[in-house]
């Protein structure tokens, strides 16, 4: 009866590096085959791309040690066997990529605007910022300061907007579009849910029309039709015309996002506000909208990312944003054939902005999920 039981083998490791590898990469033989295949592909591809972008790339000097001033001096054009990307084009044209054709002696105005933009964004992004109220006041007046600073006035010489370009135009379009579209979007969302049939119908028509047509047709509308609609003497700047189109476009999308937030507010909130004797506007601005906007911030950030990417469309109507400057540089005989370097750089700049925004929106979503549940039930 007293037989000795054989001791069992220890279980397969599921912890530590070996365990992790076993579970995630070599779970069964198909999985292992896939892993090996993918590693092989990466082995073929990654060293090559690293070599091209970094190790054998020119940054300012070519392999002979000369400073690069045109594409013929790039290492890979001197010796096709030797050399990868030629980042010197970015180095040489960096000013244009960031400021466009803004006069060099006035460029401090753009730099100050960039810094002020960062300061103005702080209280919007960080809710626990110390002295947030004071910063917020600055955020409200920032657009006015930036307008005069960039455009001229109060003793500063005027800089025509056709000298603006690069990142400056991209940021002006993106920020102004988002900032102007927000209040219009709120009004449209309220209008769409209004009990007055005429007003709600007009808002629905506007929103659905804008969402049904591509942005490029609205840009054409702004460029070719808007001047026909305006009486003589009112001459609109190209940038302003594009801004009108972009704002109209973005406000329709913003309205739908905010409507989603409004729909999530339980009727009890409306009834409670009404029973306190609040008027329609007071109820909306003090009770409903603060809650609705709070929950629709993540999708608002997402549509803003969309708009930020869509600002590149302005190159089709002739404005020189970041991508426009890139294409302009490519058309220059000095820098012919460097399309990969330029498009890589422009993509990288856009990626940094949009990826940052999407991370921020994810962070907000997580925070909202763990936050207070506005008494929904």
């Amino acid at each position, binding site marked *: 009866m007293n037989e000795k039981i054989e001791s069992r083998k220890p279980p397969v490791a599921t912890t530590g590096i070996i365990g992790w590898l076993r579970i995630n990469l070599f779970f069964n033989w198909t*999985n292992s085959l896939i892993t090996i295949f*993918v590693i092989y592909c990466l082995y073929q591809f990654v060293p090559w791309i690293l070599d091209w972008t970094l190790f054998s790339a020119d940054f300012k000097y070519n392999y002979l040690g000369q400073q690069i001033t045109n594409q013929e001096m790039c290492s890979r054009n001197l010796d096709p066997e030797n050399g990868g990307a030629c980042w010197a084009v970015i180095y040489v044209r960096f000013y244009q990529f960031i400021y466009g054709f803004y006069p060099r002696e006035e460029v401090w105005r753009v730099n100050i605007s960039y810094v002020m933009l960062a300061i103005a964004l702080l209280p919007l992004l960080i809710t626990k910022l110390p002295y947030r109220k004071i910063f917020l006041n600055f955020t409200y007046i920032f657009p006015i300061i930036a307008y005069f600073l960039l455009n001229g006035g109060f003793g500063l010489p005027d800089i025509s907007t056709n000298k603006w370009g690069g990142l400056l135009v991209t940021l002006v379009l993106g920020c102004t579009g988002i900032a102007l579209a927000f209040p219009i979007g709120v009004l449209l969302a309220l209008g769409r849910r209004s009990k007055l049939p005429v007003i709600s119908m007009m808002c629905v028509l506007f929103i659905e029309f804008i*969402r049904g047509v591509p942005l490029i047709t609205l840009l054409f509308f702004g460029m070719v039709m808007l001047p026909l609609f305006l009486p003589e003497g009112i001459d609109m700047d190209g940038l302003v015309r594009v801004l009108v189109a972009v704002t109209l476009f973005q406000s329709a999308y913003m309205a739908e996002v905010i409507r989603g937030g409004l729909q999530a507010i339980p009727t009890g909130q409306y009834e409670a506000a009404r029973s306190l004797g609040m008027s329609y506007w007071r109820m909306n601005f003090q009770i409903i909208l603060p809650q609705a906007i709070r929950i629709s911030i993540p999708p608002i950030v997402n549509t803003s990312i969309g708009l930020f990417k869509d600002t*590149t469309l302005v*190159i089709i109507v002739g404005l020189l944003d970041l*991508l426009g400057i890139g294409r302009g540089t490519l058309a220059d005989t000095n820098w012919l054939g460097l399309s990969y370097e330029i498009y890589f750089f*422009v993509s990288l700049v*856009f990626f940094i902005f949009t990826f940052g925004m999407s991370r921020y929106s994810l962070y907000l979503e997580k925070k909202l999920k763990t936050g207070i549940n506005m008494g929904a039930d």
Partner: protein
Amino acid sequence: MRSNLNFFSDERFRSIFFQTLVVGLFALGIFFIVQTTAYNLEKRNIATGWRFLSDPAGFDISFSPFLEFKSTDTHLKVYFVGVLNTLLVSITGCIAATILGFLVGIIRLSSNWLLSRISYIYVEFTRNVPLLLQIILWYSILIQLPRVKQSLQILDVFYISNRGLYSPRPIFESGFTYIFIAIILALISSFFIRRWAKKRQDLTGDQYPVFYTSFGLIFIIPLILFFILGSPMSFEYPEMKGFNFKGGLVIRPEFIAMFLALSIYTAAFISETVRAGILSVTKGQREASAALGLKQSWIMRLIIIPQALRVIVPPLTSQYLNLTKNSSLGIAVGYADLVHGFGGISLNQTGQAIECMVIVMATYLTISLTISFFMNIYNRSIQFKEK
């Protein structure tokens, strides 16, 4: 004074008052715009009306696979060519984006860590770079391909060069009609066989090999018929003549760039909705079906995907709409779609901006509404039906 105030605090009166006010202001605005526009048009000597549609266009369109286009054709024909090109790139793009998107979305959830990381990197990189930039980048890659003289050959029938992809063009002879009819009959009958097989399986539990039967009906029978009728189809091969290829089927680099960029960009978004949809199916469903002894592939196909589709389809619809609207970016690489052909070149030649833009916008609205309509029908058909 007092009675007046009472009057205004009456909600019904106030609602009528404000609505009349809004309508009045709107009408006034329209009236003002129409007047200034009429004045501006007259001053700039721009013709109005729709007569320009029947005028000869006077320019060539390089890519018109469905209609033969000559420069003596009318602006109306430019419009039709544009609509067809827009639809062509949108439909092929939607199909490719759906396939790629589902694939990437499923791979993203794969248990293989490397695969899921790679699809994550793909999604983040394509989503966060502007589509226009991607279109231009693809185009610049395609036009850096070798010249026609040194074009890459695949199997001696496909030629890839910076002028596009040349492939043999099928020429259908008279007997091909029978094969075509056979294929259509096969499609209809396999649809009914599927319904019958499902009913039979519900009643008796017996399975019927629907896939193999349909495959035989759709491919094998027409193929046999093809040889019986003496191969009523021949190919016109592209031939090198002078500096370019003559004959054959040409797919221009503009189209390829648009197709690649649109489908790769949209697939990243679709993969995210697919991932969210699959994650929305509770773990218990997977465990229960595994406990019933279903194969892994069956669990996905029969249990997970049908439930995930309910969550996936509404955002998928908006992705299709986005892709169709984004196809208007073809103007950046010279793809002759609606915006580039009719809204661009025709508009510039005739100067009739208002008419052209109204037509273009109305067409996009129609396409958008049609897609929403059909996707809503499909959405209703897959929603959970409570008995």
